[in-house]
């Protein structure tokens, strides 16, 4: 296309006009490339439906939580009216597919940026950096750190990276107890089908508040979990716009207010500085 234009530019008028027409038709074609979140009137945003404090479906069908509020803020900065956002429930196992097949435009679902996932998804953010910790039954006094999970049953959510951190990356020989979501994990923990739930402190804090004195967080964090905004692979302008929005969210105090709103009552140390972005390329 470039070469075609170059020749025509120096030649006779007819050729130039032909090149102009070609240029216009090429410009029209490029709009059919990978869809960007930029310039959309409406957005479908994937959030968790069963994680209190982060993404939880309400009885009226709406969604509430830190992730949901951050998603609303970012969508507003992208120029999307709050009424034009559709929240779509996703699970740890469906996040990549939902982005790839276009059933959601963005994912805000305690979605840790990992090099493996980056081979399939472009990540804006992180908008927060959480830390993996471990939750056990309140009466269990044998587990003080992740290393004590050796030989214990550890809940493993399909599609989640958390159990891989324990059994693969840290090579701790825990026995995996498969589950579909962290809400099932917590149920399994309280009724004795698993000994531990190990995942991000923000997720555990929400469940611990709900489960009350039945459970205990061991408070031995052992990783950085960078919560990314999943968008379709290659949407660079979308990724850059999302990063700009996250920067603004920290600058204008919204991030601090939202963290306080959702996690102010927990023991968590909340970090209100803009995180180091992953970068879009």
């Amino acid at each position, binding site marked *: 296309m*470039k070469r075609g*234009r*170059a020749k*025509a*530019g*120096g030649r*006779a*008028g007819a050729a*130039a*006009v032909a*090149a*102009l027409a070609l*240029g216009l038709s090429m410009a029209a074609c490029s709009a059919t490339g990978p869809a960007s979140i930029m310039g959309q009137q409406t957005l479908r945003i994937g959030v968790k439906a069963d994680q209190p404090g982060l993404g939880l479906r309400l009885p009226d069908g709406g969604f509430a939580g830190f992730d949901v509020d951050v998603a609303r803020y970012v969508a507003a900065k992208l120029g999307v009216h709050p009424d034009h956002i559709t929240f779509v429930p996703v699970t740890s196992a469906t996040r990549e597919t939902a982005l790839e097949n276009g059933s959601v435009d963005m994912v805000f679902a305690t979605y840790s940026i*990992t*090099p*493996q996932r*980056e*081979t399939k998804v472009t990540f804006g953010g992180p908008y927060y950096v959480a*830390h993996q910790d471990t939750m056990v039954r309140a009466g269990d006094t044998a587990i003080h750190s*992740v290393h004590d999970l050796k030989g214990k049953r550890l809940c493993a959510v399909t599609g989640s990276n958390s159990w*891989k*951190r324990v059994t*693969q*990356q*840290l*090579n701790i020989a825990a026995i995996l107890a498969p589950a579909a979501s962290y809400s099932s994990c917590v149920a399994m923990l309280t009724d004795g089908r698993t000994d531990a739930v190990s995942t991000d402190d923000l997720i555990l804090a929400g469940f611990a508040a709900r489960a009350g004195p039945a459970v205990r967080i061991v408070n031995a*964090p*052992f*990783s*950085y979990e960078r919560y990314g905004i999943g968008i379709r692979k290659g949407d*660079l*302008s979308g990724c*850059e716009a999302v*990063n700009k929005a996250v*920067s603004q969210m920290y*600058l204008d105090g919204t991030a601090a207010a939202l963290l306080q709103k959702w996690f102010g009552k927990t023991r968590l140390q909340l*970090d209100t*500085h*803009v*995180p*180091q*972005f992953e*970068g*879009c*390329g």
Partner: protein
Amino acid sequence: MPSQEPRRWRPVGRFRRLGLQTTPGRIRALAVVAVLAIGGFYIVANVAVGNARDGLRVIGHDAGPQVLATGDLYFALGDMDSQVASILLTGREHGLGARQQALRRYAQDRATANRAALQAAELSAGDPTDQAAVRSILDGLGQYERLASQAMVLDEQANHPAGPPPPNVIAVYRQATDLMTLELLPPAYNLTLEGGATVREAYAAKHSAVLSGRLWVALAGLAVIAALVAMQFFVAARFRRRLNPALAVATLGLLLLTILAVRLLSDEAAHLQAAKTSGFDSILTMARARAISNSLHADQSRFLLDPGRADTYSLAYLDKSQTVLYVASGNLGEYHTALGTAMKAYGANPRDVGFLGFYGDEARAHPGPAVTAVLSRFQQFQTDDQRIRQLAGAGQDRQAVMLLTGRTAGSSGYDFDQYDQAVVSLIGQHRGTFDQTIRAGDRELGRSVLGNWAGLLPLAALVAAVLVVAGVWARLAEYR
């Protein structure tokens, strides 16, 4: 109906009012058209040349240098923290020689950080958000230095052997390193990324604007020439003269100007493209790779220094290693093995890039000895890491610290510096290409056959218009 007749005759009436039914009227009209076309040509060419100039300014003089300055800032800051960790790990064993070197380097890094921050602040003049970010880094740096000195003083007092310092030292170091990694480094890295985003946007807009500008310049030039030739024929036919010299000179001049402008815009588009794809993109990739490498090197020291956070730091080390060079692997042990396999295949055939991440991109985009050097030194550094972790796992902290903090051949510290130098020299190579293309673009914009393009365009348009008027003036005079 009487109204029928005037309606039918109205166009003729207009024609008559413009005087187009007479020869002088037609000449005047043709002259007006030609002068307007010249004006149009001037506007189109001016916009296109302006786009080229803007593109070069943003990519070559604002965002490009910003990426380099903030990259240096990140490295210097991160390296300060690495050096503090080395000092604390060495403890009382000054004989290892690492302590003096680390202190010297800490001071150097401090100076580099200051210089780079000032440069970044200058480059972000006019952007209050960016300037605030640079200011907050400098403010935080003062606080970091206080905490770091406090940790070093406590460490001296503790008088411990090489290895992890006592808990009171670790507690202060944690405050320092958290300040560094949560408050100082992120804005520096984000500024680098922002420079990259600015360049990508400017390039997308300006490169295509220059190309479409070139097309419009060609069309406008042809329109002017067509108008002048039409005048030439009309005048020749009406006045039975072979050639109107003023019009002929204007026609030839415009033809030359159109060709030169089209060529200039082609060259500028090519310079923008080369600066972006052969220079800038790799500078950004490598600046990011250098920043993340620096940060994973610090995680290696922190892993030895702070046993309470050993898991956190080794997981971060793995994540960052995979960001720099990705090979599928479940843990660090698997990563080291997979890296060895991938490097072996790459060594046998440099087209076989069986890895992703920053170095995957770079090895695919710019294969050559400079990338190979970076990769082999990265692998050497990772091999050292494996040994450090084996020693630490076997309880041989002193040996692990010696290997980590040493600056002589065979130590990990030395190998890291070698690796970093290879990265710096690769960045330098891309920077050479980048500076060269930007300079070439600036030079051609500034220099035309008759001087500066910014001055040439209005002057040429004015002269052409004067020639057109002069060319018809004498003919019109015959009617007075």
